[in-house]
């Protein structure tokens, strides 16, 4: 017979034992482990979700703060730019002002220096001219320069036209004060006499004449009374020479000022 009932019974017992053993050593531990892992994963996922939400909140907060910071930065930057611009303008103005002051001082100094130079030059030229004229007149005419100056002065008095002569006469006659004859050098007695004679001739009357030495006239001689005077001096020619020199030097001076 194919069925052995003892074996059937034994196999049933075997199978029931197997079921119990496998439940004990296989299904329950495995299913418990899987459940534990699922719980663990679920907890991890929940934790990850919570962290994600927290991270999102922090991200939002950070972005908000970042936006605020950017806005503040832009405001501060614009304020700073305005302040920098104002400060720059202020510094430029100050520098320009300082530059103007320095330039002005420099110009003044230069003008002073030029003036001084001109004075020196003028004096030198006059002295040179005087010396040359003296030497030339001495060599040519055999007379001293003072004689020639007196001669020229007297000639000019003689050569006055009628209008000038009348005017001079009326002015000097009306003046109650002394007549002054000023010269850069000491006049000899002859010269004084000649001068007094010519004055008398022009005024038509005797007037007291006071002779004075004024070195600043430089080879000149003048007749004056009460604010009016008639003069001749080498300084007049030198003044003309100076004006001519100034005219010539004017473009160079302007260029230096620029």
């Amino acid at each position: 017979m194919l069925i052995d009932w003892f074996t059937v019974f034994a196999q049933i017992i075997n199978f029931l034992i197997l079921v119990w053993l496998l439940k004990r050593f296989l299904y329950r531990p495995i299913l418990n482990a899987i459940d534990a892992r699922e719980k663990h994963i679920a907890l991890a996922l929940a934790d990850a979700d919570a962290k994600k939400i927290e991270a999102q909140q922090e991200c939002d907060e950070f972005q908000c703060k970042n936006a605020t910071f950017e806005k503040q930065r832009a405001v501060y930057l614009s304020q700073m730019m305005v302040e920098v611009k104002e400060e720059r303008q202020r510094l430029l103005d100050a520098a320009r002002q300082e530059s103007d002051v320095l330039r002005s001082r420099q110009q003044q100094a230069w003008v002073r220096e030029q003036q001084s130079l001109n004075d020196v030059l003028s004096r030198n030229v006059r002295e040179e001219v005087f010396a040359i004229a003296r030497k030339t007149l001495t060599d040519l005419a055999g007379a001293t320069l003072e004689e020639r100056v007196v001669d020229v002065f007297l000639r000019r008095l003689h050569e006055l036209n009628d209008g000038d002569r009348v005017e001079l006469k009326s002015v000097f006659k009306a003046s109650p004060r002394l007549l002054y004859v000023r010269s850069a050098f000491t006049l000899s007695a002859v010269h004084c006499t000649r001068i007094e004679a010519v004055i008398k001739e022009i005024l038509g009357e005797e007037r007291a004449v006071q002779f004075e030495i004024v070195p600043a006239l430089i080879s000149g001689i003048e007749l004056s009374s009460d604010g009016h005077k008639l003069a001749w001096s080498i300084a007049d020619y030198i003044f003309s020479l100076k004006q001519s020199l100034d005219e010539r030097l004017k473009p160079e001076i302007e260029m230096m000022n620029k």
Partner: protein
Amino acid sequence: MYLSSDDIIFWQWVFFKLNATIVFTWLVMLVLVVGSWLVTRKLSTGLHRSRWQNLLEIIVMGINQQIAEVGLRRPEVYIGFLGSLFLFVGMANIFTLFPGYEPPTGSLSTTTALAICVFVAVPLFGIEASGLREYLRAYMKPTFIMLPFNIISEVSRTLALAVRLFGNMMSGTVILAILLTITPFIFPIVMSAFGLLMGMVQAYIFTILATVYIAAATHEHKPEPRG
């Protein structure tokens, strides 16, 4: 040549005997239990686990899923019985790879024993799920006329369950033995491989049929999908 491993008797005393069926059954049980114990004694509940734990988890979860797909809503209740059926039958068939091994499932006594277990387990699970009265009333549905037919159906399907597994496994073993005597090279290897496949298919069929019977008895069906 033996038609059944029951005929290979190692020891006998009066009514008790120790035949190849029982011995090889113990061997299969030993491998299953010791293997499970070795793996599950240090289980990991974390994300990192051993390869053997992975294998066992795949097997257990696969059985669980199959039970759930058939319609049982609480597979963890039935996995002890149904999973043991599948693992025992499957492992008994896989061991046919080893020469000298006689599959216990090739014995009608074993298949009968397993069928009896199913025959007893089905009403037990049914009564546990819906109560004795409700379970017995199911035999008279749709009408009481169907009572004898339902009883005949219950017995015949148990018989079919036993004979189907026995026939398939015994025939496979017998065919392999005959082929070994005719063409000792190559062809038996192909047949062995084929026998492995057939063994696993039979284990699957046996378990699925038992699951279907239990599902029918417990009325734990999935709700009909709405079209």
